[in-house]
């Protein structure tokens, strides 16, 4: 080799903005609304490279639905979607207050990411199973068969908590609503969703699975296992990567997003992949339908990267002012999913400012009343918690002798049963 050897340097990615600096989203590749083609659902997966590198968008700056991905959808469906996003936001806001008042120990909001869950749910059928992370509460709050009082009892870890006080707040489980138990460990459920979908195919069932992961956890081996197994067995599953730019304080470049897209990983694994504006309710609905149809027609998995922004803190234990510019969300090129759908519906004449204000006020009232009702069943703070025996139940299908003995001992030592 001619010349002097060059000293090697380690590259450690940095975000484009830190506290006190001007924010800069120039790293985010954004396509024009309507620009990206919509292929037939039976496209060869390796031919989805364009869709994985560009950004599928439907709503333009004026709130008009444009281009091939504009979905056929009744305004009434979109109105319900808007209300569900507002309801999710109202629930989050009330629970953040409750956490600051120390009525619950911990909370995680999904501010700015509501469309990713709520619009996706519209593409699923009863019996399908979602394997969500802790930021898809919209999947539950868009349903009319989930009682918000019961959700709040889970957050309070009280006597009415359906999970018997065993899980951190927000780690819900609702089999009957197609909502898999949230682990709390990251990425583990992504590959389980693939297994659930494989079982559906093994049984000759018609149900599909939808898996969720954040940009940060795509670095886990379970993400790659999920892609491999989904591809190998052509599993009827939707693999959702919610790229909200931040994993606690870690910018998405540290997860491997620099100079590439998360959707591109799917193409490399032989999976049809889309990169979609996650704050565009119509684009989320349309892409979700496309992916669900592929799964239902035995065409295999679809990976969808939803580009969005985590507008709030990671959790109530986090302070984003310490690691990112304060005005990030205001400058985010893809805006706010609620404001954008509201603009679209207003343009259609299907929504008004007065109706918006009335709805927000009513939802706020609903959440305040629900919290009052849930609090009547106690909280982890006031000691109205599930009985001691529940600590020992459900470890095994039937309680083995050593746990019966430990339960007896714990009751004797604490003086409660």
């Amino acid at each position, binding site marked *: 080799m001619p010349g002097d050897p060059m000293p090697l340097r380690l590259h450690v990615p940095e975000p484009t903005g830190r506290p006190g600096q001007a924010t800069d989203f120039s790293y985010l590749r954004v396509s024009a609304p309507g620009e990206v083609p919509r292929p037939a659902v039976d496209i060869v997966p390796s031919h989805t490279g364009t869709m994985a590198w560009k950004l599928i968008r439907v709503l333009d700056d004026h709130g008009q639905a444009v281009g091939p991905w504009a979905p056929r959808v009744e305004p009434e469906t979109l109105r319900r979607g808007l209300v569900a996003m507002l309801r999710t936001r109202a629930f989050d806001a009330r629970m953040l207050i409750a956490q600051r008042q120390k009525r619950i120990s911990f909370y995680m909001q999904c501010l700015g990411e509501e469309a990713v869950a709520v619009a996706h749910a519209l593409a699923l059928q009863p019996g399908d*199973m979602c*394997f969500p992370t802790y930021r898809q509460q919209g999947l539950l709050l868009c349903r009319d068969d989930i009682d918000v009082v019961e959700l709040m009892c889970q957050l309070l870890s009280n006597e009415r908590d*359906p*999970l*018997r006080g*065993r*899980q951190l707040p927000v*780690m819900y*489980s*609702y*089999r009957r609503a197609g909502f*898999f*138990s949230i*682990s*709390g*460990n990251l990425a*583990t*459920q992504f*590959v*389980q*969703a*693939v*297994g*659930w*979908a*494989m*079982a*559906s*195919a*093994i*049984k000759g069932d018609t149900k599909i*699975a939808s898996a969720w992961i954040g940009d940060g956890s795509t670095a886990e*081996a*379970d993400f*790659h*296992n*999920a892609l*491999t*197994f989904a591809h*190998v067995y052509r599993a009827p599953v939707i693999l959702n990567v919610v790229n909200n730019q931040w994993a606690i304080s870690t910018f998405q470049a540290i997860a491997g997003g620099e100079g590439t897209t998360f959707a591109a990983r799917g193409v490399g694994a032989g999976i049809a992949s889309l990169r979609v504006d996650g704050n565009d309710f119509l684009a989320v609905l349309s892409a979700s339908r496309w992916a669900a149809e592929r799964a239902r027609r035995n065409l295999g998995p679809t990976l969808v990267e939803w580009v969005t922004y985590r507008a709030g803190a990671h959790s109530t234990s986090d302070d984003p002012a310490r690691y990112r510019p304060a005005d990030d969300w205001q400058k985010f090129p893809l805006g706010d999913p609620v404001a954008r759908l509201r603009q679209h519906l207003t343009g259609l004449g299907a929504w008004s400012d007065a109706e918006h204000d009335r709805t927000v006020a009513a939802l706020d009232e609903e959440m305040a009343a629900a919290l009052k009702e849930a609090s009547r069943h106690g909280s982890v703070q006031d000691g109205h918690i599930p009985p001691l025996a529940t600590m020992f139940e*459900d*470890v*095994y*299908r039937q309680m*083995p*002798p*050593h746990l019966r003995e430990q339960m007896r001992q714990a009751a004797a030592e604490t003086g409660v049963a």
Partner: protein
Amino acid sequence: MATMTMIQALRSAMDVLLGSDPDVVVFGEDVGYFGGVFRCTEGLQAKYGRHRVFDSPIAEGGIVGTAIGMAANGLKPVVEVQFADYFYPASDQIVSEAARLRYRSAGDFTAPVVIRMPCGGGIYGGQTHSQSPEALFTHVCGLRTVMPSNPYDAKGLLIAAVESGDPVIFLEPKRLYNGPFDGQHDQPMVPWSRHPRSEVPEGRYTVPLESAAVVRPGEQLTVLTYGTMVYVAEAAARQAGVDAEIIDLRSLWPLDLATMVDSVRKTGRCVVLHEATRTSGFGAELVSLVQEHCFYHLEAPIERVTGWDTPYPHALEWAYFPGPERVARAFRKVLGEGLP
């Protein structure tokens, strides 16, 4: 009645399960067309089809992770991790997911997955094909850990494991696959057909979990052991002329405490024996249980005979393996006969 090897008995168990329950599926590395590197699943794909018995990618986390998802969707997966030494990439799925899904969801979802793993040494497998990691599983609440020592138990326990509704770690001592090896590695191998526990019914039966077997009744001392070491203990008792009561735990956790305690209270002396490394090994738990439940019946300190606290060596395999001589020495020690 037909005699079977461990391999044939395990295959027969999976055959019975696949044939009687459409929810049972079997998969893992090389288990489909080829029938597994130890042949335990040979012929099952041809009989039951590729959608029920199939090959998997080389990703233990993916094997166990997908099995959990399948179980949550009503199937009963029986998966193979090719060697127990390879389970580590699946640790998160086993410990944080399978073991706790029922608990964390308050019974909303369960993960009745059975994970078969060949374990143990004696085959010149070196440090990546010889490990006995049972203590890493017995430490995890929510798991059942099982290790059969003979063909009859292997089939009955595997069927019981699948029907238990709990996640089960099913450890198969690979040195026992083809015969009851007693640690005398320079002797010709004894085939299973000469052992009474190789008589295995063709159809369904179970050996209950949480149930130990007294494989040799005796009066002088109690041996608590499992897997390959059952035969090593028998050889040691013969060689030393000791009337040992040998207990094969079969289910390591949850276990059959009563059988252990009754025996030690009767003999007053106890030797704990396993092939795995010593420190924080499952033997430490057994010693603790005996101390808690039998202290006033003990005539001598409890002895532990185990593998050394080193990686499993290749060339020095037989210096590592706790053979009959080491076990016999422990017998003499607890009997107060002094060291030779």
